[in-house]
C-alpha cells in the first residue's frame, strides 16, 4: 500500500456522499453530491463531466448538471437505462459513491458565449448538461443577451427539472422558455409536437448561438432545421457521448478520429464535428 499520503493518480477517485435525491421523472433522478465533510468535491465549468462509481458495480461518465455558481454541492441528473444507472437509482441519501473529475472541455461561457444571445435546444435527459450552462448564464445575467430555451420530452411527466424551469427560468429577465411534448396528454395545455418541428414553427432569428443536446435523432433534425433557418455550423454547439473509462484520453474507448471525446470534448462546435469520421 502507498504510505506516501500526497501521491494521487488521475484514475483514483474521491469519496462522495449523496446528500439529496429528487425523482424528476419516472426514470430520471437528480443526485446531490458532497464531500464527506461537506462542501463540493471539486470546481468545474459548465459542460464538464465526472466519473461516478458504485464500487463493485461500475463507473460511468455523467455530465455535471449543476452550475459552478452553485457553491454548495454538485448535481447529476441520471436516467435509469443500464446496470450502473439502475444501481445508482437504488441508492439513498447518506449512501456513498466515488467521484473523479471534472473531465473534458466546457461550453465557452467566458469567451465565445459572452455578450451573445443564446438559444438552448434540449430533448429529454439532454437538458442535464445544458442546465449547468443555463444556470451559469442566469447567475451572470449581465454577461449574456437574450436567452431562449426550447425543451421537449416524450410526455409532460418526462420533462426534467420542470419545477425549476417554471419557478426560475420562466421568471428570469429576458428569458423565453418554450416547452413541448411529443404526444397530446390530459392536463397538458402547452405545445405538442417534436422539438425540430416546434423549432421551425417558432422560427428563431440567427442572431444567437445555438446549443443543442438530446437524442441523436433529435440533434440531427434540429441541426437540419437550424441550417434551413440560416444558422452556420460555427454557430452551433453540442456534446458528444461515447463509452469512456479513463476520462483523460488514454484508454482508447471514446477515440474518434484524432479526438478523444472525454478530453477534447464533450463540447464540440458542428464545424469541428464535420471534420470527424462519421462514427459517433
Amino acid at each position, binding site marked *: 500500500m502507498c504510505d506516501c499520503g500526497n501521491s494521487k493518480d488521475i484514475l*483514483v477517485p474521491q*469519496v462522495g456522499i449523496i446528500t439529496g435525491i429528487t425523482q424528476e421523472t419516472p426514470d430520471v433522478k437528480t443526485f446531490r453530491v458532497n464531500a464527506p465533510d461537506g462542501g463540493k468535491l471539486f470546481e468545474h465549468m459548465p459542460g464538464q463531466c465526472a466519473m461516478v462509481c458504485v464500487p463493485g458495480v461500475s463507473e460511468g461518465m455523467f455530465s455535471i448538471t449543476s452550475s459552478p455558481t452553485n457553491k454548495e454541492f454538485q448535481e447529476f441528473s441520471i436516467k435509469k437505462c443500464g446496470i450502473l444507472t439502475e444501481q445508482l437509482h437504488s441508492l439513498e441519501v447518506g449512501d456513498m459513491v466515488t467521484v473523479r473529475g471534472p473531465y473534458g472541455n466546457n461550453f465557452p461561457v467566458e469567451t465565445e458565449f459572452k455578450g451573445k444571445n443564446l438559444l438552448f435546444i434540449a430533448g429529454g435527459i439532454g437538458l442535464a448538461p445544458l442546465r449547468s450552462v443555463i444556470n451559469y448564464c442566469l447567475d451572470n445575467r449581465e454577461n449574456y443577451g437574450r436567452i431562449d430555451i426550447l425543451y421537449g420530452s416524450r410526455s409532460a411527466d418526462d420533462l426534467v427539472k420542470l419545477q425549476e424551469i417554471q419557478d426560475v427560468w420562466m421568471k428570469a429577465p429576458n428569458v423565453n422558455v418554450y416547452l413541448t411534448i411529443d404526444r397530446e396528454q390530459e392536463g397538458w395545455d402547452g405545445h405538442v409536437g417534436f422539438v425540430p418541428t416546434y423549432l421551425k414553427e417558432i422560427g428563431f432569428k440567427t442572431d444567437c448561438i445555438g446549443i443543442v443536446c438530446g437524442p441523436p435523432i433529435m440533434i440531427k433534425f434540429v441541426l437540419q432545421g437550424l441550417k434551413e433557418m440560416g444558422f452556420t455550423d460555427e454557430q452551433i454547439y453540442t456534446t458528444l457521448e461515447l463509452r469512456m473509462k479513463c476520462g483523460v484520453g488514454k484508454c482508447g474507448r471514446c477515440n474518434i*478520429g484524432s479526438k478523444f471525446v472525454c478530453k477534447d470534448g464533450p463540447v464540440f462546435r458542428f464545424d469541428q464535428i464535420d471534420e470527424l469520421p462519421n462514427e459517433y
Partner: protein
Amino acid sequence: MYKISLKDLDTLFREIAGNNELILPVKKAGQINFGAYEEGVETDLINKSVKSPKDAFFPQFETLYNVKKTITPADELADGEEAANTKIRTKLSIEMEGLKDKDFVIFGMRACDVKGVEVLDNVFLSDPADSFYKARRDHGIIVALACKEPEESCFCTVFGVDPADPTKAKADVATWIVGEDLYWKAVTEKGEKLTESVKSALTDADEAAVESEKANITSIMDKLPNTKLSLEGWGAGKTDEKFNSELWGKIYNPCLGCGTCTFVCPTCQCYDIKDYNTKDGIQRYRCWDSCMYSDFTLMAGGQNRTSQLQRFRQRFMHKLVYYPDRYDGMFSCVGCGRCVDKCPQSLNIVKVIKAFDKEEKGGAV
C-alpha cells in the same frame, strides 16, 4: 565500449539482479516472454518474444486502488448523524496502490520495442500523466539488444527503426552479440550508472567488431520481404480519404475479433478499468483491453462501432492516421511483426498497408 563473454552472461545477470530487479527474455514451456530473472533461468536472446515487453511499464493487469467498505450498524450511529437525518450504512474509503519506487533493469529489449515505449510515452506521459506508468518509466533502465537474426515477419525499418543500432532508440544501454561476446555501450546517464555498478563483470572492448555486426544486421534486414512497404498516403491529415475507402469492406472479413494482435503489440495502449469484489471491499484494477472486441464501445444506449469492419478499421486508422495526427506525424506501429506472426487468420497491418498501396497504384486487391 565494454564486452563480456556470452558464457559469462549469467555472472552479469547475477550482478545486475543483486542490485535491481531484472527482467529479461525467458524461455518457458517453449515460449519466450519477458520475465523476472532467477537463478538457472533459461534465456533466449536471439528469437523474438511472443508478447512485447511493454508489460514492464504498462502491465497487463495492475491494481489502481482498493475501496474499503466499513459497515456501521444503525444502532451504533452517533446521535448527531441521526439528527442530521443522514443514514450512514456503508462508509467507503480509498487506498491507492503504491507506485513503483525501486529501480529495475529490463534487458534484451529490441530497438522496435524501445520505440514502442516512446509511442506509449506520448499517451501515458502527456498531460495529465499517468502516475503508475510514469513511476515505472522513471525507475526502469532499458538495456537494449541489437537483433542478431531479424525474422521474416520483421519490418521495423519501415517505421524508421534501426535494428542494428539501439542507441538510436531511447535505450539507456545498447548491446550487441558479436561472435562469442556481448558488447555493451552506455547511452544515457542512467545507463552509465548501471554500467558503473556492473563494471567488474565487463572488460574494455573495441568498437570495430560492433560496426561490422551492424552492417551484417542491415544486410539481413534489407532482404526481408516486408521491409519494402510504402507508407505513402498514410499519416496525419489522411482521415477522410482513408476512412471512407471501400477497401476496408473488402479486406476486414477474415478478422475474428480475437484481439491477439492488440495483446502482442508493443504500442497498443487501450485499457479497461474493472472491479474485483474481495471479501472486505473492492479492488479496482486496470487491464489491457482491445478495440477489436465487440463490447469495447458498448454503452447502455447502444454503441458507435457495431460491426467488425468498423472495429478493424479503427485499429489501423488509429495506428496509421489518428495517432500521427495527434503526435507530430509519429506512427503507432514499430514494425515488430508480432501481429504478422500471431494472427490466426494471417490478417495484419502489413496486409492492410499492401492492400491500400496496391489499390492506389490501380491494381486489383
